């Protein structure tokens, strides 16, 4: 079992939150491939089977459509399933139940559908085109799904608690590159963090960087560098894509008059397009420069390090873009 030593990793924070919700609410259970005996492909649920038993820690066959639909049926009659997709890439096997069953059920019928879908996503692990995808935009287009993308261990815990308690299908995307690279600065709080509230993680005056998940850390590192050159970057972590905290984003842009959006998903119709469009709709007359997007190239994610690094945004590109927008 994850124990909070005071410096939980991002991965342990996810496990701590899940553990505490399963302790708190007997209707919460975890279901997915290898989540029981094996403790999950990334070990988020290590020890869960011993503690909660096979009734609440459910190992499944390789059947994403089946177990996602199972979660929908269980949620309809009052349980609170947490579904683990082994990799976010495999979620395409469950498009049908997510989009046609989970997402629109409440709007059609008024019956709540409290299903949390956890999925490790993202690149930089040299895992290639079908183990590195950022899937948020596939689902952001579909009304009825909430999308949660924590960037820190602290947010990973509090946002998972809220996701599980939410009465809607929630896609909770865990950045697997951050799993063991990030540690909490203190003891993790398991208090819920409300969905739809962005966070200004660094205050600045010259340009706003709007980002989420691993982009938060890339952004903070680059912002610290640029500070030495006298460029003051404000970093906004949106934390949840749906619902989106437009107010916090717009207030920051009104302050800095310049906005850059950063994510590691592909550029075309990535979530940055939505943010950029929203900023120009809500804060056009406050902008001194067009909103610029930094995103992955419109290619699949390659495996080999020089190739993957050429596709996913790197610190040099982020720094150069911010510098250009801030000084233009």
């Amino acid at each position, binding site marked *: 079992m994850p124990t909070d030593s005071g410096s939980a990793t991002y991965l342990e924070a996810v496990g701590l939150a899940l553990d505490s919700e399963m302790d708190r609410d007997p209707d919460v259970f975890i279901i997915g491939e290898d989540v029981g005996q094996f403790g999950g492909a990334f070990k988020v649920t290590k020890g869960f089977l011993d503690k909660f038993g096979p009734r609440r820690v459910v190992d499944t066959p390789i059947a994403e459509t089946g177990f996602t639909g199972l979660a*929908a*049926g269980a949620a*309809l009659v009052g349980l609170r399933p947490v579904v683990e997709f082994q990799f976010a890439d495999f979620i395409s096997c469950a498009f049908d139940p997510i989009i046609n069953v989970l997402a629109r059920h409440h709007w059609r019928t008024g019956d709540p559908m409290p299903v949390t879908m956890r999925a490790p996503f993202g690149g930089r692990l040299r895992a290639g085109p079908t183990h590195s995808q950022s899937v948020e935009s596939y689902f952001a287009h579909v*009304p009825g799904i909430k999308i949660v993308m924590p960037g820190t261990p602290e947010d990973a815990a509090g946002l998972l608690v809220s996701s599980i308690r939410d009465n809607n299908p929630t896609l909770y995307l865990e950045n697997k590159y951050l799993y063991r690279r990030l540690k909490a600065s203190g003891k993790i709080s398991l208090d819920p963090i409300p969905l739809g509230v962005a966070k200004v993680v660094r205050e600045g005056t010259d340009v706003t960087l709007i980002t989420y998940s691993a982009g938060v850390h890339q952004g903070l590192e680059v912002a610290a560098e640029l500070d030495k050159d006298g460029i003051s970057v404000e970093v906004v972590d949106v934390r949840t894509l749906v619902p989106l905290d437009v107010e916090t984003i717009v207030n920051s842009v009104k302050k800095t008059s310049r906005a850059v959006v950063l994510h590691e998903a592909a550029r075309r119709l990535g979530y940055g397009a939505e943010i950029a469009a929203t900023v120009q709709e809500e804060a056009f007359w406050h902008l001194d420069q067009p909103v610029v997007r930094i995103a992955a190239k419109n290619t699949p994610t390659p495996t080999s390090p020089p190739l993957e690094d050429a596709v996913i945004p790197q610190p040099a590109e982020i720094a150069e873009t911010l510098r250009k927008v801030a000084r233009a």
Partner: protein
Amino acid sequence: MATRSRRKANGNPVDRHDKDLLRRIHEVMVLTRAVEDRMVAMYKGGDLLGSLYTGHWHEAISVGAASALRPDDYLAPIHRDLGAHLWRGMEPWQVMASFMGKATSPTGGRDGTLHYGRLDLNIYNLPSHIPANFPVATGMAFAAKYRGEDKVCLAFCGDGSTSRADFHESLTLASVQKLPNIFVIENNQYAYSTPLRLTSASATFADKAVAYGMPGVKVDGTDALAVHEATVEAVARARAGEGPSLIEAVTMRMHGHAEHDPADYVLPELYEEYAKKDPVELFENVLVNAGVIDADTAKQVREDARQAAIAARKKSLSDPMPDPSNIEDGVYAD
């Protein structure tokens, strides 16, 4: 586990059942037919929004199976199963309102046509691509087992559905988890225009049960008692914690896929064969011959059903259309 066709047990099967139950099954089958015949007229007369999906010749399956459940058991029916909804207490006017996009439909006009399932009747309201209801049915059964309840969940699908991944994944999950599911395949010979020979090379659909490690049985889907008895057996097994079962009920889709479809691709001899096997008439004859009802009662049941369908049409026609001002409400639950 071998699959089998149900053999007729000795004696008159009518004698094995409560007479009130038999009369109720008959009444709901007759009502189902009357409501669907009325809706066909409404379709032709332009009362309905889009097409109309009916379950002519599926009445013995939908009512025969639903009548083997308790009201607190879960149902995940498809578009041929009006009879199962009526068995549970759905009002015919609500179904008509659904096909008209009325505010009084179970979804208030947000969804329409066959999407009128009501969770307060323990019936799942499915999306269009069947058998998307199958995984959901495993979840309802999972929840019952999780809570230590003895409820079961019965899901219907068609012959065409058996080709899809969700059919395979659901039967796999239900059997490895020993879920209290009953899966009923309504084999009506055609998946839209696709005949059985292009859908499956299996000798029967019931055969598929062997591979999933569950009992499979093939029954005459025009025989309400055969369907009912096969379902009773599967329900008992599920309730006892022994896991899921598969039932293949064979009938014929006597109308098009929907009313817009002339179904001129259907082999005429199939229509001829099944014209002699109207499940509603067959069951009426069984009950009259066994003295459970008399001919006058049978006539009265038909007339009551006809009047109920006429009244339902009147009510649904006069019901209001929905108000679009709140269309963005409810995308998310509170």
